[in-house]
């Protein structure tokens, strides 16, 4: 059952050196009702329901230091949102412990709620029928933000998110991207120390995505807030997070620098060779590595990480003058992630 951690309940602001998020063996099991399709099964389900336990989060442990921006990666149903909901206090875990800023999140103490925000890209928390500026005023009173601080926060968010024209229109008249910017402002109006962002750029066009990304990076730089974000867009993660936590089927697969993810999870390199005369040698390429593509004048090979230097040297040597350019790179991050999720791997911690 749930354990609370007495020493973490104290209502104190953490020192800057303290860990902001600490999660230990966190689990969440949902009981769901299952039913087969068809009339007979439907009738049977009136009498007796088949219930099944689903381990949404199956025991994860990690910690996050102040000011970190951590990317939380995993396919749909991996347990990302469930974890964020537990850390923000919406969900009670089935087992395990968590402490954020020294509070047990699911106790939802006001002192904790004052210092935390959860922003979900596909949910709205603004009142539709009134301009956001008026919602901000309501939030000011709910969070008891002093007037001066409120003004400076609103000014700063207005500048960073370019909200000038948006806050005075009723929210329902805003486009999705505009609304998301305003949602961000509403979610951060109380200057939280920790922000959980669940798919903050979902459904937005490329330029709006990158604007939101720039905002998150700048916000983190200016305020030192700790940010844990989930996203399906690897660009978000690459742009914002030095560190990533990868979960799959409720288990932690990787926790460490984004830069090392490829090395740990994808034990191969991509060698791309470009040739002068446009002629790709038709034979023997397999002896260097697996041919990924072979276009006119360019060949791409996948080579085991350990032998990559040796194969590259041999390729340079063998191709001689015909070689115009050669590069040795990690595979694209999407490919690495895809590889992680499609293969069963054991936990790797950096």
């Amino acid at each position: 059952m749930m354990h609370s951690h007495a020493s973490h309940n104290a209502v104190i602001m953490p020192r800057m050196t303290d860990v902001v998020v600490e999660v230990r063996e966190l689990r969440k099991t949902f009981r769901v009702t299952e039913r087969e399709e068809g009339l007979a099964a439907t009738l049977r389900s009136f009498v007796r329901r088949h219930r099944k336990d689903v381990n949404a989060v199956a025991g994860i442990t990690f910690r996050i230091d102040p000011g970190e921006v951590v990317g939380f990666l995993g396919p749909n149903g991996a347990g990302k949102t469930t974890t964020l909901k537990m850390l923000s206090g919406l969900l009670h875990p089935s087992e395990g412990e968590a402490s954020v800023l020294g509070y047990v999140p699911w106790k939802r103490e006001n002192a904790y709620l004052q210092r935390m925000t959860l922003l979900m890209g596909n949910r709205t928390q603004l009142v539709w029928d009134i301009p956001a500026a008026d919602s901000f005023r309501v939030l000011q009173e709910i969070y008891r933000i002093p007037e001066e601080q409120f003004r400076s926060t609103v000014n700063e968010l207005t500048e960073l998110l370019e909200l000038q024209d948006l806050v005075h229109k009723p929210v329902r008249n805003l486009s999705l991207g505009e609304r998301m910017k305003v949602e961000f402002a509403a979610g951060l109006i109380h200057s939280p120390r920790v922000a959980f962002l669940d798919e903050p750029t979902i459904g937005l066009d490329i330029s709006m995505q990158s604007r939101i990304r720039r905002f998150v990076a700048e916000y983190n730089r200016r305020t030192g807030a700790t940010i844990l974000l989930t996203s399906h867009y690897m660009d978000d993660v690459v742009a914002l997070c030095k560190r990533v936590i990868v979960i799959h089927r409720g288990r932690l697969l990787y926790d460490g620098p984004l830069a090392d993810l490829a090395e740990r999870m994808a034990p191969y390199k991509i060698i791309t060779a470009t040739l002068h005369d446009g002629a790709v040698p038709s034979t023997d390429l397999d002896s260097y590595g697996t041919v990924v593509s072979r276009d006119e004048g360019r060949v791409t090979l996948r080579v085991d990480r350990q032998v990559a230097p040796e194969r590259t040297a041999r390729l340079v040597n063998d191709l001689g003058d015909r070689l115009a350019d050669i590069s040795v790179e990690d595979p694209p991050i999407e490919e690495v992630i895809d590889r992680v999720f499609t293969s069963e791997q054991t936990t790797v911690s950096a």
Partner: protein
Amino acid sequence: MIRTYRALLVAQLQASSQYRVQVLLWMLFSVIRPVIFLAAWVAVANAQGGQIGTYDVRDFAAYYICLSLVSCLTASWNAYEFEYEVRFGRLSPKLLRPLHPIHYAVVENFVSKLTQIVPLSIVLVFISITFDARFRTTPAHVLLFVPSVVLAAALSFLSGWVLATTAFWTTRVHSVSTFWDRAAFIFAGQIAPLALLPGPLQALSLVLPFGYVLGVPAEILRGGVSPSTALLLMAGQAIWVGVFFVAFQRVWRAGVRQYSAVGA
């Protein structure tokens, strides 16, 4: 808290100002039912020589006019909205703010009544003249009516929330509240003034909470009961408010635990 309420009030007034026509339609809709009952009782009373029990035609008119007013002042529709909020996850952001979600509903409820009361009063004055309503109201009745209708509104609001909170367990709050409304139809004084219900039903109506929301304050305003009886009835209102207040706190706590157990 006062500042929070003021901010919520301003926001809600702005939001509802965008739905002026809707407010008017709701108000008219809420008057239709009492007027139909009034017309029916007038017809029945006229057929029986103009009098049923202690009510004559003009008493019926006064009763249903008071009932319309009370009905507007005590209306509570949280069950419907709350089910929607739970089902579509709109409750979650509210749960993550340092303010109990009930406060938003209190303000919304208050503002809605505020916007309806003026146009409703005009309509009721018109009906009153048309049916030549006879009020037996004394200043004492008016004085007692104010706390009585506040208690009734609180009772209606709290019982509505207790029902609404069942949304945490079932996504079919609608059927629960429909059952509740059917019971209220008989026992709240809608189909007939409580004094005209057959003996056993009348006794039951004094035990159940429904009559304390509509019939009781309506009769107090009409001057249909003596001030001392009014005080007794108000004690009944206070008891039910207490019961539902305790019930709400318990059900809410258990409900939020359930919500956060199965998926917010």
